[in-house]
């Protein structure tokens, strides 16, 4: 074991077993997978993306580019998990990824030897010959070699939840500046959320031996958290990553709820929060960067502060012979802590010649550089620029610190270069966001505390909270000094992006070829495009570019970071909206009743509607549908049409309003009458149709199609509020309040008479076709009756309060037995409307005009109404436009196909001869043949002509005759009877 005794924030009482590549290992509660692997002496954990170089654990946080593993098995497996961010749990199963053959002997490492031929952008210059080889040979090989981890291919078995939180102040990061901010805000009374991606709050303090107010940093963290927990106005959220900053103070957050121990339970694995914050403070700290030297990518070459954290927080001995390579003061703190812990530090190399070594009890070299490393699966030695060779099995590297400015970029703020600390600091931040601590480019704790206090005072007073007593904190921290970027002296390969294998040579080639703007460089070399979004590599890359172009880094510029800060599972973004819960169900009032009668349902928008009602013995849907049609036309049928939009329109100007929103005239509609209305969009294209009934001078009831119920209402409100604000019109959507049933067939009147309360006369004389009125049924239930017909039969639509719908269905079927009453579904409804030549959704597809639909004459020429003006444009108003007509196969045995196109006889089937298309087809049980509706050029003048209905998708051609669209009862005797 490589574990120090009496050091670290782990619970040695709780031993946790886990496996890596099948090897059984153990760690302790408080470990990450990475610390547990290191405790077992395991540095090699994976392979790089392109050259398949051995990769170790490089960092101790979410910036990790190298230690990506495949976590879990079966459907629970999760690719590309950073070993550094996973809290160890019992029975964790981890496997390395992206190698062919064992991890130690990856066969793909041949790429490493071929690397001179695989330089930046090489693939753009080859694989082009022979042409057919790309998809068949080259690309499959490239695809197989690329990628990192694997998906299982099975549905994600986990549950994810979503939630919403509101606060005055969101604090992002619970390190020293975050905790101080939270404490000040909490004491001031503000509603605070403080979130941190780590499972242990405290940030860098947990891995450092800093003293705050003469106590250890770890103790200060503990006390602060205890106090924060005592406040009702504070919510602490560990294991919660604020992954993105969005408009108006909205933040996306991902909380890891369980680690993987509750996979089988229905509790959510992760929760996606949307946090609404009046103000935010970004306290996200900084990430360390590496230095440039030959083969600086070997396992056990690690970031210096991470080495220190592994030692201090997890009690790890990172190596037997540790060397440290730094260009700043922080590397020395690592050296000091390692020495104190009893580790063997063989040498500290500092690039700066002109400093005084902060500690003396160690072998050190000033003004020197590491130029080369050796080792195969782990570093074994380093060579300095003066030729000194040092045996070492762990090299801690510190090239300075990059403030974690990511969230400041999410609204496209561009970071600014800070010369003093050689780093990018936040530029323009999202509105309401303040940045404090290392994230703002301040690196020593005393300055951080000062800055935090100052900025928090301002924020609290802005939020209207009192700032109480100053919290005085003093740390034993010294100001930080870092040397400028310098040129790499190495001859071999020098890595910048460890995951995507981008080296200095790649950048050289890109610049040489003209890809020297930062954005082009990124795209050409893939620098910073890996799963870490370049957290450890971007600034290094820019330094190389700046040296190559001989321009200061601020002139070279930088790319910006995009959300999310760390990757977020697609499953978490979807939450519970998957499977049957993808969208809510809307059920019709007769749904239960229909279910009991074994109805087959169909999705219509969010509605479920009965499609047909199969009877025992019926083998195909056609049998059921034919029966429903025949029985309705023979006697009487009933269909739930509640899904149609219903809008109550009231007011003195309601009539004028209808005149304005419908293309046909409504002003003179008599009270007690219904009229068909065609609604256009203002561009003259048909929008919707339906009927509107007039119950009194100033009260109309409109119906819309099911599909457009919502959009028509929105449109009417626009017309009312924005176009005719002075008119007295009021709108109310009543779609869900009235259950509505179509009762159709020659016996519909007789059936209705049985349920209508006595004295209501619905004879043809007193209640003719297109009449409407308020009625009552079943002894006093108020209802609305409309004599309208979609089926072409003598028919009514009856609307009653929704709560009665179920018992209404029970009763009417009881009474209807003697009329052989049949329930019919949407399929029979569709057949009957096609038999009658009525347009529906397939015809009102947003591309057709009144003229196309054969309704051109209805459109008002005089009044100003929505759509009539633009419907008069030459290209949509001519004689030769498409017209809706009927089609019947000349051979009765053939079935028409919707979506077929029409070609004149004798002409080849190609676009130039395309004359229109078939929109709807049905088998008509009345005519005992297939019939269709469709649009064809000047169709209304071509009745009797035969054309080909071609369906090349199925290589089929059917000769059809153009007919009137009114196949059944063309004169309408039945509906007036």
């Amino acid at each position, binding site marked *: 074991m490589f574990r120090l005794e009496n050091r670290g924030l782990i619970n040695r009482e709780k031993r946790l077993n886990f496996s890596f590549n099948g090897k059984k290992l153990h760690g302790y509660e408080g470990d990450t997978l990475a610390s547990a692997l290191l405790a077992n002496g395991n540095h090699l954990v994976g392979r790089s993306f392109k050259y398949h170089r051995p990769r170790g654990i490089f960092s101790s946080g979410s910036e990790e580019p190298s230690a990506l593993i495949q976590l879990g098995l079966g459907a629970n497996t999760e*690719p*590309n998990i950073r070993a550094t961010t996973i809290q160890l749990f019992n029975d964790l199963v981890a496997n390395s990824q992206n190698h062919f053959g064992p991890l130690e002997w990856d066969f793909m490492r041949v790429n490493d030897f071929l690397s001179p*031929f695989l*330089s930046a952008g090489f693939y*753009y*210059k*080859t*694989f082009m010959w022979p042409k057919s080889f*790309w*998809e068949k040979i080259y690309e499959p090989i490239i*695809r197989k070699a*690329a990628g*990192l*981890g*694997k*998906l*299982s*291919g099975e*549905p*994600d078995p986990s549950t994810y939840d*979503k939630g919403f939180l509101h606060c005055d102040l969101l604090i992002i990061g619970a390190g020293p500046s975050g905790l101080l901010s939270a404490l000040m805000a909490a004491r001031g009374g503000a509603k605070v959320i403080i979130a941190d991606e780590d499972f242990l709050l405290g940030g860098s303090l947990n891995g450092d031996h800093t003293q705050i107010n003469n106590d250890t940093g770890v103790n200060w963290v503990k006390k602060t958290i205890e106090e924060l927990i005592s406040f009702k106005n504070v919510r602490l959220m560990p294991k919660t990553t604020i992954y993105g900053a969005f408009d108006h103070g*909205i933040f996306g957050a991902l909380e890891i709820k369980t680690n993987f121990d509750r996979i089988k339970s229905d509790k959510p694995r992760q929760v*996606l929060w*949307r946090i609404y914050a009046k103000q935010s403070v970004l306290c996200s700290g900084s990430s360390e960067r590496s230095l440039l030297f030959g083969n600086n990518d070997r396992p056990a070459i690690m970031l210096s502060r991470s080495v220190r954290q592994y030692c201090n927080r997890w009690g790890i001995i990172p190596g037997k012979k540790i060397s440290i390579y730094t260009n700043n003061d922080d590397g020395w703190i690592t050296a000091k802590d390692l020495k104190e812990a009893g580790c063997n530090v063989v040498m500290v190399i500092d690039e700066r010649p002109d400093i005084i070594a902060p500690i003396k009890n160690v072998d050190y070299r000033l003004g020197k550089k590491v130029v080369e490393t050796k080792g195969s699966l782990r570093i074994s030695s380093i060579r300095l620029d003066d030729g000194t060779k040092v045996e070492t099995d762990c090299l801690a590297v510190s090239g300075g610190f990059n403030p974690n400015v990511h969230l400041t970029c999410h*609204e*496209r703020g561009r970071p600014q270069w800070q010369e003093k600390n050689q780093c990018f600091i936040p530029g323009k931040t999202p509105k309401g966001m303040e940045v404090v601590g290392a994230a703002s480019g301040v690196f020593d704790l005393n300055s951080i505390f000062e800055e935090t206090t100052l900025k928090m005072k301002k924020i609290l007073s802005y939020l209207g909270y009192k700032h109480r007593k100053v919290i005085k904190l003093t740390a034993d921290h010294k100001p930080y000094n870092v040397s400028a970027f310098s040129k790499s002296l190495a001859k071999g390969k020098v890595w910048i992006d460890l995951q995507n294998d981008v080296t200095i040579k790649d950048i050289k*080639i890109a610049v040489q*070829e*003209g890809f020297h*703007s930062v954005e082009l460089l990124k*795209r050409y070399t893939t620098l910073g495009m*890996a799963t870490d*979004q370049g957290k450890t590599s971007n600034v290094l890359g820019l330094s190389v570019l700046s040296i190559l172009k001989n321009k200061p880094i601020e002139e070279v510029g930088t790319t910006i970071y*995009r959300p*999310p800060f760390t*990757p977020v*599972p*697609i*499953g978490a973004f*979807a*939450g519970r*909206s*998957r*499977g049957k819960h993808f*969208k809510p169900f809307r059920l019709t009032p007769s749904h239960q009743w229909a279910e009991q009668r074994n109805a087959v349902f*169909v*999705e219509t928008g969010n509605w479920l509607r009965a499609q047909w009602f199969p009877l025992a013995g019926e083998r195909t849907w056609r049998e059921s549908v034919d029966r429903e049609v025949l029985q309705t036309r023979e006697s009487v049928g009933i269909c739930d049409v509640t899904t149609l939009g219903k809008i109550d329109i009231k007011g003195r100007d309601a009539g004028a309003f209808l005149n304005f929103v419908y293309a046909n005239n409504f002003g003179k509609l008599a009270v007690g009458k219904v009229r068909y209305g065609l609604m256009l*969009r203002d*561009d003259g294209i048909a929008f919707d149709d339906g009927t509107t009934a007039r119950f009194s001078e100033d009260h109309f009831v409109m119906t819309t199609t099911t599909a457009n119920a919502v959009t028509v209402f929105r449109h009417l409100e626009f017309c009312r509020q924005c176009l005719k604000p002075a008119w007295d019109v009021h709108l109310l959507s009543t779609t869900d309040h009235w259950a509505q049933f179509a009762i159709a067939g020659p016996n519909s009147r007789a059936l209705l008479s049985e349920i209508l309360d006595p004295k209501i006369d619905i004879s043809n004389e007193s209640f003719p076709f297109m009449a409407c009125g308020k009625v009552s049924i079943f002894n006093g239930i108020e209802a609305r009756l409309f004599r309208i017909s979609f089926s072409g039969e003598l028919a009514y639509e009856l609307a009653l309060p929704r709560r009665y719908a179920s018992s209404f269905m029970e009763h009417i079927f009881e009474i209807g037995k003697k009329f052989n009453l049949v329930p019919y579904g949407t399929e029979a409804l569709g057949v009957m409307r096609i038999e009658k030549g009525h347009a529906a959704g*397939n015809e009102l597809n*947003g591309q057709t005009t009144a003229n196309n639909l054969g309704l051109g004459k209805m459109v008002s020429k005089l009044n100003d109404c929505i759509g009539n003006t*633009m419907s008069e444009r030459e*290209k949509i108003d001519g004689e030769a436009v498409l017209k809706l007509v009927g089609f019947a196969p000349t051979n009765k045995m053939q079935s028409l*196909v919707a*979506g*077929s*196109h029409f070609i004149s006889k004798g002409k080849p089937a190609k*676009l130039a001869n*395309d004359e229109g298309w078939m*929109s709807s087809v049905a088998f008509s049980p009345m005519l005992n043949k297939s019939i269709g509706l469709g649009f064809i050029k000047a169709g209304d003048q071509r009745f009797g002509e035969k054309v080909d209905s071609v369906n090349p998708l199925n290589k089929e051609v059917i000769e059809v005759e153009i007919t009137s669209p009114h196949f059944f009862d063309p004169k309408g005797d039945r509906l007036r009877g």
Partner: protein
Amino acid sequence: MKYSAAKIFLEGLFGNRGWGKAWREPEPKKNYDVIIIGGGGHGLSTAYYLSNVYNIRNVAVLEKGWLGSGNIGRNTTIIRSNYLLPENEPFYEFSLKLWEGLEQDTNYNSMVSQRGVINIFHSDPQRDAFVRRGNAMLLSGADADLLDENALRKLCPYLDFENARFPVKGALMQKRGGTVRHDAVAWGYARGADMKGVDIIQNCNVEGFIIKNGVCSGVRTSKGDIRAKKVASCVAGSSSQVMSTAGIRLPIESHVLQAFVSEGLKPILDNVITFGAGHFYVSQSDKGGLVFGGDLDGYNSYAQRGNLPVVEDVCEGGMAIMPMIGRARLLRMWGGVMDMSMDGSPFIDRTHIDGLYFNGGWCYGGFKATPASGYCYAHLLATDSPHPVARGYKLDRFRTGSLIDEKGVGAQPNLH
């Protein structure tokens, strides 16, 4: 310099020192035959076809940022020609044919990968509409296949056939559709145009037009005035801004469309899949990332970034149709600004100002159109008459009512 495997081998042996510049970086001349405003995909392809097909080489491409910085660098890389309307289908089919020969034309591997584009349908009316569309494609000489549920199951067993809110009933497939490495398209065209003498001028912002008596004779730029016989605007996303300096108001709104990519994964998705009951489409790149997208954010924006509701909406669509991607993690999201036109279709036309031409309004279909857009724009610039496959893309079509509205939603750009 011709690129080839042999060249890569030789360069590899000698330290890759011999790779020359992919294109020159010239200062602008005083005069050109044609100035193309916009060094994105369409501008560069226009320059490429002007110089390579129409033999007009005294051409400058003016780009305000870096080459390819427009939507060519921020899209979801899909190519297809599965359109319905007769004004569109021949154009996009022409484009697809140009894609098929692109690498050999430009000597640049832009990784055109004809993986097949699958549009799933979930209801009978949707199937009817897809049959109509598939037949329109076939009548125009494109390819199309209607897959029933069983055929789709065989091809994409990971779709949610069992538990879907909206049943998966089949799909319309275009086998010749697929994906392309988007940045490489810009680079290939740039290199090809540059080799014929086209000046590609980066970091050159066009601030206005030089217009006198209804004739445009050049542009005012951050690098001074530059004269040209013809000035061709090609700046989708910023069309309204650029054209307003010529006093032209366009039938266009700018909207943001977000796109997403996951972490790299081993191959799991062969085709391009489009969900028919929500907003989600996806493909897997050669690097292994799932590249996906959905609907517009829906409000006018030039911000090149979007908001959370659409991110969630898209991922919900993804999980509804292929619940296997739940554990794939979204790595990056970004937004591009789209020229959303009033009928969802583009413009390649002259303006009422002599010498000033306009190409724009590509909505979110611009990437797949890149070759044909450039070809047809070059044709218009060279001959002053529209290319036969782009005849419908007129700026004044709303006056006459010659709408090209694939989706049938009318003059409401955010719905197209």
